[in-house]
């Protein structure tokens, strides 16, 4: 295995373009190193991007945020204002792994690992987060929901990597939330995850995005679920319709972490609970 520490994204792209065999980018390493140790993936070329200037910065970008690709979960949680504007997003990232893992894990890594159960991804999708993808043919901006294509697979092409994460402006009267179900209280992979982001006009929901994790080959953006609450004041009927739409969107598998039936049911439960939190947050921000 070759190990490189390029000092610019251009160098990183050049290294990846010329690389033979399996190439992996190393940010936090919490997936790459596990896969290496377990003989699941032994990269031929490992490109550590942490020495590139700015990758550890969280900066304002208009009224939104630009999050560097090596920013860790701990750094997001410790940030003064990011979590006030986007508590759901920060909490989702914070749910990943232990304190130790938080010291290393990144949003970008969580996204590019391609797991349908990645906690930060439904929260990013709900928030409308986009990423910059840089490759041999230049840069493009891609919505987070368009990155994963299947378990362990992404739409990134050879030589491409994510070089920045863009969080939109929070704006007025908005709130987001992310909840996941795990059997323990910590240290598990989501059996179901649900991220919800909404905006109020008075008491009425006028915008909403609902994303589900671990219930399909990729994280789902569920328009029907959003439509179930848009135009409502999140009354019981709206919540039931939301739960039904969320469950209906599920296309999960039976595996060691949960059954189809369980995941489908709990997706609805979590959607209701997450919606209530997001609604309260939006009210508080009004």
């Amino acid at each position, binding site marked *: 295995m070759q190990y490189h520490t390029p000092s610019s994204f251009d160098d990183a792209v050049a290294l990846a373009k010329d690389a033979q065999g399996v190439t992996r980018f190393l940010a936090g390493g919490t997936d790459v190193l596990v896969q290496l140790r377990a003989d699941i993936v032994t990269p031929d070329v490992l490109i550590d991007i942490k020495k590139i200037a700015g990758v550890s910065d969280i900066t304002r970008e208009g009224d939104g945020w630009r999050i560097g690709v090596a920013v860790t979960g701990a750094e997001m949680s410790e940030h003064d204002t990011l979590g006030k504007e986007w508590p759901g997003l920060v909490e989702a990232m914070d749910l990943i792994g232990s304190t*130790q893992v938080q010291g290393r894990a990144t949003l970008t890594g969580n996204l590019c690992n391609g797991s349908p159960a990645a906690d930060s991804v439904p929260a990013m999708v709900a928030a409308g987060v986009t990423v910059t993808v840089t490759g041999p043919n230049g840069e493009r901006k891609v919505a987070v929901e368009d990155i994963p294509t299947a378990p362990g697979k992404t739409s990134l092409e050879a030589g491409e990597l994510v070089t920045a994460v863009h969080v939109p402006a929070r704006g007025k009267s908005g709130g987001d939330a992310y909840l996941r179900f795990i059997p323990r209280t910590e240290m598990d992979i989501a059996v179901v995850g649900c991220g919800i982001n909404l905006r109020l006009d008075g008491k009425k929901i006028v915008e909403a995005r609902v994303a589900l994790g671990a219930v399909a080959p990729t994280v789902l953006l569920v328009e029907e679920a959003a439509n179930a609450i848009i135009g409502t004041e999140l009354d019981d009927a709206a919540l039931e319709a939301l739960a039904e739409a969320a469950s209906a969107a599920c296309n999960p598998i039976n595996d060691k972490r949960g059954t189809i039936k369980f995941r489908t049911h709990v997706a609805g439960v979590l959607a209701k609970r997450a919606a209530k939190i997001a609604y309260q947050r939006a009210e508080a921000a009004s």
Partner: protein
Amino acid sequence: MIHVNTKVNGDDVEFLCDPRETLLDALRDKLGLTGAKEGCGTGDCGACSVTMDGRLVCSCLVLGAEAEGKEIATVEGMAEGENLHILQEKFIEHAALQCGICTPGILVATKNLLEKHPEPTETQVRYWLAGNLCRCTGYDKIIRAVMETAADLRKAS
């Protein structure tokens, strides 16, 4: 082989490592610091906890090569000479260890916790330590030792 210069417990050290070797491998096999333990190799047990530039990490999830230019702290650096760190004292006093294999990682993690959060609640301590598995104690005496250390440190300051 990669030549790595780093600082461990305040000492400048250097080692050669294969790019696949982890910081844990380097600490244990190259530098003879066997206080950090490999309980899982997947970042799930915390027995290999160290800090890197003040940040708590699992050394099994850091490549040896990534330690270049960093400052690493391990359990071996906690005591000052023959004087134990107060956490080490409290763990012994409270019988907060049995087999002791998780103890180095838990001590490194709790020291880091108390540096960042001098007044933790019990829940905060429990969640901070969720990545440090202990199979002997049921955590009860560990939590008590940490809470009492925090209280003592606050009184002393």
